[in-house]
């Protein structure tokens, strides 16, 4: 049984082929990174996996189940969480509330119970808070737990978004450029967390990233894309040395 597999995935917007016939497989428990120059189609692949775009061709298989054709929210219910490149937090809510929304897929109460707030709902709420508090500890967010997201600096928001994705208790975590906009120190923290997420939480990570230091530090395998086409796959060192990758980033020798 394969854990997560993308087969011949493709999407075209009018005449533009954004992703063309890309296949890869993510094994349980690894960090798999997609790299590529701007416009290579990395985020588009994430949006295809999240079913935000309908794929023009190909299949996405998660635990041997085909995802294509589900409603977007079903993806999260199956245990795939994601972060966004430009941060999509609930800005007028506190950090704690943001993380609590991450618990949505674990809700167990019905509307009628919630309207009267039965003891069952109360217990479930307390349990959600316990779960969220563990993540707050893990990501060292205790200082800002009751702060509104609007007032937080960019670096912290990035962590909050990671925390919100973790709060869904996912099996597969999609990180869209976790280090973009972070300073070297914050990037370092992020690398630690990604390693910990893999080792201690046992979550498989699929990530899009530009920072090659971070990539080679945390990834088990790397896939390089250019213009929507997969050009190389292997360990970080292999991919970095691959002639096609060098060509994509730096251009071909004349």
């Amino acid at each position: 049984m394969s854990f997560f597999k993308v087969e011949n995935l493709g999407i075209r917007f009018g005449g533009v082929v954004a992703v063309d016939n890309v296949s890869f497989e993510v094994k349980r428990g690894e960090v798999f990174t997609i790299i590529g120059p701007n416009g290579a189609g990395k985020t588009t692949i994430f949006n295809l996996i999240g079913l935000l775009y309908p794929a023009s061709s190909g299949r996405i298989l998660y635990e041997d189940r085909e995802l294509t054709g589900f409603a977007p929210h079903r993806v999260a219910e199956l245990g795939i969480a994601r972060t966004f490149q430009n941060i999509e937090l609930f800005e007028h809510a506190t950090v704690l509330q943001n993380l609590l929304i991450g618990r949505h897929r674990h809700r167990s109460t019905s509307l009628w119970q919630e309207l009267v707030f039965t003891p069952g709902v109360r217990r479930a709420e307390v349990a959600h808070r316990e779960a969220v508090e563990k993540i707050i500890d893990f990501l060292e967010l205790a200082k800002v737990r009751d702060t509104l997201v609007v007032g937080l600096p960019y670096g912290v928001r990035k962590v909050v978004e990671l925390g919100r994705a973790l709060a869904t208790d996912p099996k597969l975590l999609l990180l869209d450029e976790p280090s973009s906009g972070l300073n070297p120190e914050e990037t370092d923290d992020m690398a630690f967390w990604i390693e910990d997420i893999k080792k201690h939480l046992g979550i498989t990570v699929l990530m899009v990233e530009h920072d090659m230091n971070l990539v080679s530090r945390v990834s088990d395998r790397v896939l390089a894309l250019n213009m929507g086409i997969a050009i190389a796959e292997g360990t970080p060192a292999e991919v970095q040395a691959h002639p096609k990758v060098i060509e994509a980033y730096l251009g071909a020798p004349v």
Partner: protein
Amino acid sequence: MRFLFKTGYEQDVRLFQHGGQVFSYGLLAVVLVLAPWWAGDYFMSQLHFIAIYSIVGFGLMMLVGFTGQISLGHAAFLAVGAYTEALMQAAGVPFVISISCAALFSAVAGIIVGLPALRLKGIYLAIATLAFNVIVEEIITRWESLTGGNSGKHLKPVELFGIKLDTDTSFYYLCLGLTVLCALACANLLRSPTGRAFVAIRDSEISASCLGVDLAWYKTMSFAFSAALTGVGGALYAHKLAFISPEQFTLFVSIELVTIVILGGIGFLHGAVLGSAFVIVLPQLISIAKDWLPGGLVPTGLQAVVFGVILILFIIFEPLGLYGRWLKVRTWFELFPFYRRGMFRRQKSYMKSERLR
């Protein structure tokens, strides 16, 4: 200044966060329960309206303030509730059942209106709901065999478990009781997963759906819940007026309801109550002011003009409404003398990722 020390997760879930809140809400409850003793006939009647409008305000607040969907057609739900109540009472149905049906039918109407909301946003949704209002208004005017058309419907006082609530006082307690129940229902919903899903949809649909929130389901539910509360309000409204006709459910009423939410403070349940009080009291103030103005100077549409001007001023200078203003005043006192001018200023938000839909 009060510092809250949290020692358990229970504390966050509680309805009242600290003793001060218990005290102030308790005081409010006592004042309101004793209202028949301190308020005159006229003021009692105003309190009826404030309670009824508050229920409607809660409904609209859940939709506009917490789910982020606009509706310019809530007078239609008010009408559905009011006519359901009028017709069922005429048919001899007990009040408990008829008001439940008013809520239920309004909720069904809400679901019907909610369906376009799955595809429409912002101004387009406003137009769709506005059209719904016009349609319902037209239906109740034309369907004379059922609604009596322009000649309207008369209602008898409420009869609850065989007791006639025909005095101001007894009807007041009914309204007050239902208002408190509706407020509790909203507050409970907001501290549970459903309420959080609403807020998630309001703030970012895209990430809400990536966290497993079924947008279609929760938007529809929000419309249904909002309409149900409005239906309850409509039933009480019908009893309060004792006579209903299509004129009471025009577009202007819908706009008045939106005014309640905006003036009160979007995103706060308290705002619904403050907004209702404001909207009920303002016309009285205007008519008092009219007496002071020289006769020739009073234009006929004074009330609409004042409403419009106040709405615009609020949107520009106090987008958080009356409740937002109160929060600022409270913070000023709590922090005295350290309040800074920019404390509540909203920061410009960072770039959002590309909007996918």
